């Protein structure tokens, strides 16, 4: 076999191997998981009423001071119900969680918090989803980790449970707690 032919065969084999690797890699890559465009960017400015208290305006400043979770939720979202118990648990452990009630009805949302317990430090009412849009939210639930300065450090789309918290979120959150 001539050198040139050997080289050609090697090239083709390398191509096939590369393609196979890409395909296998692709299988384990969830296409629904989008990289957040807001990672390492400041949490957007907002000025919207608190859930159930139309006169009390909340702003970005209310979220600052310590690392915290920001959870986008709604009563129409079944996955939010699924993860709610876990947020109760996290809140009991002392993790501050801010809620954004996304495109929801106020009375339903308030009833939900009464029925399922309220793990949130405070809840921003976002009935039209404008804050959601500024956050790049495309479906509830979505959970962000922000640092004490309000910079977004992590985003998770989907239900937060024990595994997600321990594997993905706790390392980021605990890293932020260290001075």
């Amino acid at each position, binding site marked *: *076999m001539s050198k040139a032919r050997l080289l*050609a065969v090697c090239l083709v084999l390398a191509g096939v191997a590369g393609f196979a690797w890409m395909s296998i890699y692709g299988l384990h890559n969830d*296409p*629904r998981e*989008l*990289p*957040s*465009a*807001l990672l390492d960017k400041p949490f957007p400015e907002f000025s919207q009423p608190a859930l159930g208290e139309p006169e009390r305006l909340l702003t970005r400043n209310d979220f600052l001071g310590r690392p915290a979770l920001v959870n986008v939720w709604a009563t129409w979202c079944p996955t939010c119900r699924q993860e709610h118990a876990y947020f109760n648990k996290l809140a009991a452990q002392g993790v501050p969680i801010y809620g954004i009630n996304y*495109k929801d009805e106020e009375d339903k949302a308030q009833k939900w918090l009464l029925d399922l317990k309220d793990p949130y430090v405070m809840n921003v009412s976002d009935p039209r*989803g404008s804050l959601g*849009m*500024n*956050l*790049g*939210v*495309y*479906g509830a639930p979505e959970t962000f980790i922000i640092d004490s300065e309000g910079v977004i450090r992590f985003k998770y789309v989907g239900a937060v449970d024990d595994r997600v918290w321990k594997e993905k979120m706790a390392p980021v959150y605990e890293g932020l707690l260290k001075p």
Partner: protein
Amino acid sequence: MRKILLPLLCSLWLSAPAMAAIDTYEFETQAEQDRYRKLIEELRCPKCQNQNIADSNAPISLDLREETFRMMTEEKMTDEQIVDFLVERYGDFVRYKPPVDKRTLVLWYGPFALLGFGFLMLVIIVVRRRKDSHGPDSKASLSGDEQQRLNELLNQPRESADK
């Protein structure tokens, strides 16, 4: 038969306007409407992935269409500004036409590079074939080196000649 067919046809006729009414935005000019149409067809729905926001019925697509309409008509933003606004929030993912940068270089130019490589291979193969097909008659066209190599090959023992 007629008794069934007529109501059926009527119901078909009724369903057409119902579908067109999914959202009706009023534009001042046809050009504006075309621009809007083109924009929402080039923007990808972040939730439903393989649909653009024009085709998708996901709530987020509805919101994005509304926002696009609002940005176009109220804020008089250019197409570029609108796309940038959405990319800032949802990432490059929302564009069906990704920008040309370091990460997308292979995506944009890879196929052309492969095509060029294939063409180069083709040229090499054809040139070689042509050389081979000249056979013993074209002895005169062989260079000194080639003649020497040919002699070597011819003098080789049989069993290695076909390898």
